[in-house]
């Protein structure tokens, strides 16, 4: 196939419309636009929060007002008017429905389109008597619709194991001591501009606590969806794995297709105590904007894990295909001796998407180890940047890092960038970093086509092979989803 024909196929594939772009018409309870102390008081009041949390939010707001939006990432966007957003939007609550028939059919249709199974749908919609126990695969789910968590499933099973999995607003009420102890202990209010904003206005998100020695009996999962127009979504997730415990947590995200840009500024904090393990997987598929770069989510997210205890381990796995802008660096602070941090990432950008994503591995404790595997794929007019830091502090004897960072370019109008910072202050540390940039090799493409694969399938196969080291880190069901998502995201970008 000639070069230009190849490019055509590529464009046909990348231009596939976003499949999750519907919006739901539901009566919403919305705060007026704008951000002042009063907005924060209103959010806090709606959520019936204790005084300490309101004070904490107001502190964050004061800090945020003095901060400047960061400009070091390779992303460009028109200035965001923080006064032109709604900071609170919730589906209007009616009395709890008695059966599925009484549930707002729009809400149900939304869950259906998102592929959430019926039983969970009923629970998510708050149907009385619907229980999560059943024959389905064991995934407990929390769904956050705009600003509020609409329901959490499988609570009973989890409670038996002593696991707490609930909306963070509920945790504030039911488990105030835990929340107060850990909230902001990994990402403080003043951490960065977007984190400070989140601290001030976060509305909901998930809370997880795994007691000592408990292996969480099922995958925990949160589904995030932005629906309302002109709203920002600021969810906050807090996961604590107490000594010797284990949890695997999944998050997925989608949003409707809209012409204007929507802001998403989440904060995720993970804490792993001695011998605890947290595996955090994300499939991020926020609306990326259309083929001309109109609309799409601005995704400014702070995710950080604190390996507080000895031999603790935190792994981040992400498949990022959505958002107009991704600004995201899931990091690990390796404080405990022998603790382990991992970051596995696939980031795909097409059309006019911009992704600036990577990780930080801060080695503080002895014999701490980290692994970074990043695969960037850029197509169309997009720009895809890996930005990562590996830092070894003087006391981190025997620290180890291995970083592998590969970029694939599809077509000649995109950009791929690699910006690692490698800093060591301990001679016994051993750091290795490798990065490559290339296009799909012509001989690989030809080899596949000689065996009868269409060009598109050949590209799909090669790209999936390229990403394999990351995809294999995802829980099984998620990996299949992610592979499909990759193929769909790249449809039309072959070259």
């Amino acid at each position, binding site marked *: 196939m000639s070069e230009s024909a190849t490019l055509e196929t590529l464009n046909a594939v990348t231009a596939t419309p976003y499949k999750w772009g519907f919006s739901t018409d539901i009566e919403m309870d919305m705060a007026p636009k704008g951000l002042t102390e009063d907005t924060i008081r209103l959010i806090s009041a709606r959520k019936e929060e204790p005084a300490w949390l309101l004070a904490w939010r107001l502190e964050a707001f004061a800090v945020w007002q003095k901060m400047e939006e960061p400009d070091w990432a390779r992303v460009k966007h028109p200035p965001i008017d923080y006064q032109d957003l709604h900071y609170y939007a919730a589906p209007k609550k009616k009395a709890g429905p008695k059966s599925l028939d009484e549930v707002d059919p729009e809400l149900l249709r939304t869950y259906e389109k998102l592929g959430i199974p019926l039983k969970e749908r009923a629970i998510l919609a708050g149907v009385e008597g619907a229980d999560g126990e059943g024959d389905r695969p064991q995934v407990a789910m929390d769904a956050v619709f705009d600003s509020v968590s609409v329901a959490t499933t499988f609570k009973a099973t989890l409670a038996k194991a002593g696991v707490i999995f609930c909306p963070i607003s509920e945790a504030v009420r039911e488990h105030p001591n835990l929340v107060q102890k850990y909230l902001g202990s990994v990402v403080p209010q003043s951490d960065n501009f977007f984190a400070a904003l989140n601290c001030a206005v976060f509305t909901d998100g998930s809370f997880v606590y795994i007691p000592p020695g408990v292996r969480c009996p099922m995958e925990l999962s949160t589904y995030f969806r932005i629906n309302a127009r002109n709203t920002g979504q600021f969810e906050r997730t807090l996961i604590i794995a107490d000594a010797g415990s284990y949890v695997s947590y999944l998050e997925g995200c989608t949003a409707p297709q809209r012409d204007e840009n929507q802001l998403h500024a989440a904060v995720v904090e993970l804490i792993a105590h001695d011998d605890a393990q947290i595996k955090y997987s994300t499939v991020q598929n926020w609306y990326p904007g259309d083929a001309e770069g109109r609309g799409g989510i601005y995704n400014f997210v702070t995710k950080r894990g604190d390996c507080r205890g000895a031999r603790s381990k935190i792994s981040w796995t992400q498949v990022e295909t959505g958002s107009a802008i991704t600004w995201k660096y899931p990091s690990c602070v390796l404080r405990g001796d022998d603790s382990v941090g991992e970051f596995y990432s696939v980031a795909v950008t097409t059309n006019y998407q911009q992704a600036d994503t990577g990780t930080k591995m801060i080695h503080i404790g002895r014999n701490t180890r980290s692994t970074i595997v990043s695969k960037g794929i850029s197509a169309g007019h997009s720009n895809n940047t890996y930005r990562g830091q590996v830092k070894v502090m003087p006391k981190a004897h025997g620290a180890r890092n291995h970083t592998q960072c590969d970029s694939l370019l599809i077509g000649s109008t995109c950009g791929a960038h690699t910006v690692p910072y490698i800093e060591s202050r301990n001679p016994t540390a051993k750091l290795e970093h490798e990065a490559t940039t290339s296009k799909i090799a012509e001989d690989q493409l*030809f080899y596949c086509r000689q*065996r*009868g694969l269409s060009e598109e399938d050949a590209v799909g196969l090669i790209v999936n092979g390229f990403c394999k080291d990351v995809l294999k880190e995802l829980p099984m069901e998620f990996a299949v989803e992610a592979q499909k998502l990759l193929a769909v995201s790249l449809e039309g970008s072959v070259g």
Partner: protein
Amino acid sequence: MLKIEGLTASVDGKAILKGIDLVVPDGEVHAIMGPNGSGKSTLSYVLAGRDGYEVTGGSAAFDGADLLAMEPEARAAAGLFLAFQYPVELPGVNNANFLRTALNAQRRARGEAELDAVQFLKLSRAEAKRLSMPDDMLKRNVNVGFSGGEKKRNEVLQMAILRPKLAILDETDSGLDIDALKIVADGVNALRGPATSALVITHYQRLLDYIVPDRVHVLAGGRIIRSGGPELALELEASGYASVVAEAA
């Protein structure tokens, strides 16, 4: 099966094939021999439709259809298989998965039912066994970390599973140990039938002891300068190309 007339082709503007005429009837095996750089691999790439190999004249018909107008995958679906002189590595792509995808794509293109995972597993295991290849070759990534000989055997395994009508083997015997050589030959001989053909590119008469060709052609300087029966290979083995080339000049 295959009918090539006056085929000329160039790479990077440099003429490599300078007028090839070749007919491979149904059911026949033809061998192509020739000095290094004479254009043998170029011919196989042109037939398989590789980018960058520009056909500047002539024609090639495959079962009567215009081969040169087809996309590479369409040629494959039509039954043309090329065992590469230098098989390509596909990191992260599982060999079995690759083969099943390829086989099903071809079957789809031909309007045949696809094989499910279980059917395919049975087929691939059986073929691997018949070629005395270890099962784990199927589990590994395509050609990644394979030794030179393993890559060639993997090409033959793929051929056995895909069952082409016309197999072109570009020096599949190079780098093989004696046992593997027999395996390759068995693979080709197993495909032999009234409706299948093969074009075997080789430097060594040895392979032709196992795959007895119907015809032998000498390709030099981008042209077929001599054709003959199996005895021609023996003659070349004994006296080299020089005399043949001189004779043709």
